[in-house]
């Protein structure tokens, strides 16, 4: 596929509900949802609202754990990772908006272990766009789609509503 073809994007809110249906009843009652900033954090907030159970909510910024620091430096504004529950022994569902190479998830898993030793970590993503460069797979997926490598799928939030757009990759 080339970037000349603009892929058909699913509606983000409908995809979120599809993801909720897959997770409902499947995730542990007390699983903590940890969203990767920034898109994953928005999805995690919504999952915590929509999925019944006693779910702690946390947010993680993987800037300090990325593998491309040597090439791109520390450009963007990193945010404080906030995990206000005990990571030791916790069941954690890591949440991201788009699963692509798997590198952000690798970074997030490493960071989680610096907070403690979780009992288990699962992965939930709104979109799985393929193109993995690491042996990482999601346990819960809202929608799967194929997108050219030189395009990036961007999740936005406006007044609480999520939406998806496609943009050319910006090489930071």
């Amino acid at each position, binding site marked *: 596929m080339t970037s000349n073809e603009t892929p058909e994007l699913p509606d983000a809110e409908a995809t979120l509900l599809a993801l909720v249906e897959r997770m409902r009843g499947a995730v542990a009652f007390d699983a903590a949802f940890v969203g990767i900033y920034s898109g994953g954090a928005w999805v995690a907030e919504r999952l915590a609202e929509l999925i019944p159970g006693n779910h702690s909510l946390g947010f993680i*910024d993987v800037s300090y754990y990325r593998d491309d620091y*040597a090439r791109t430096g*520390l450009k963007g504004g990193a945010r*404080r990772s906030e995990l206000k529950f005990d990571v030791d022994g916790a069941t954690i569902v890591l949440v991201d908006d788009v699963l692509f190479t798997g590198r952000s998830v690798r970074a997030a898993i*490493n960071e989680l272990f*610096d907070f*403690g030793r979780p009992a288990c970590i699962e992965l939930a993503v709104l979109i799985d766009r393929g193109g993995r460069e690491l042996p990482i797979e999601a346990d819960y997926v809202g929608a799967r789609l194929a997108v050219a490598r030189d395009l990036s799928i961007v999740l936005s939030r406006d007044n609480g509503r999520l939406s998806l757009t496609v943009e050319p990759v910006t090489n930071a």
Partner: protein
Amino acid sequence: MIRNPQLNANGELTHLLTLEGLPADVIRHILDTAEPFASISEREVKKVPLLRGKAVFNLFFENSTRTRTTFEIAAKRLSADVINLNIGVSSTSKGETLLDTVDNLVAMNADMFVVRHAQSGAPHLIATHLNQHRQTHVHVVNAGDGRHAHPTQGLLDLYTIRHYKREFTNLTVAIVGDVLHSRVARSLIHGLTTLGTPEVRVIGPRTLMPTRVDAMGVRVFTDMSAGLAGCDVVVMLRLQSERMKGTLLPSAGEYFKHYGLTPEKLALAKPDVIVMHPGPMNRGVEIDSAVADGERSVILPQVTFGIAVRMAVMSIIAGN
């Protein structure tokens, strides 16, 4: 135009030598970057892997336990390898020049130098030397040079002020004491004016004021009570007795009487004033214990913030 040696061809910070002439957005980026680093020190594993495999050399040609330690902690929390060189008692005493020492350490694959030197301009000399020899992957942080600059102290002071006061654009800040010998004061004045602080005051005896200090955009007060009136922030400077030659002051007791910060004098400032000090403090010389340990003092939070600020500086310049 001569390029600022601190910035690379893209205008990004690659060395930190002074706050003078540093654009406001670069300063704000450092302060913003420091904020999340502050939380790392509260984690179970107080480390992030950002500078894993990097070699940071602490080159201290002048003694400083605290600054060296905070740089060492900052580098270690970024997972760098830290090598401390106490140069005063090694190579230079055998006659090696500063730049030969640097070249030797670059040959050992140094990635960053944290430099403290009694001579103003030594870190600048090293940075220029590295730039000229295309060693642009090696970075320099000035940890205090002569009377010139102490930019990471200036940045941690700015971070502290912003933490408690949020904005600079409505503040009155007083810097009190031995401005003449103080690189801390110079760095802070440049940072405050760049960020738009409307009133920066310096308070001290004429003998401890640099000539033409008013050219830095500050108001000069020799009367402490007048200078403290209405201040939001009071920064006390250490009386640098070890740098004093001749008869700049009659005695430490006389100094305390006129320029020591007591609760009575502090009452002239705003009720929500914060009191800062770069350390090490001389209790009973420039500051009364009742103030240093009092509820308006943020002297110990400054130390904690200093680690986050140094982590931010190192991780920004090492990535550019």
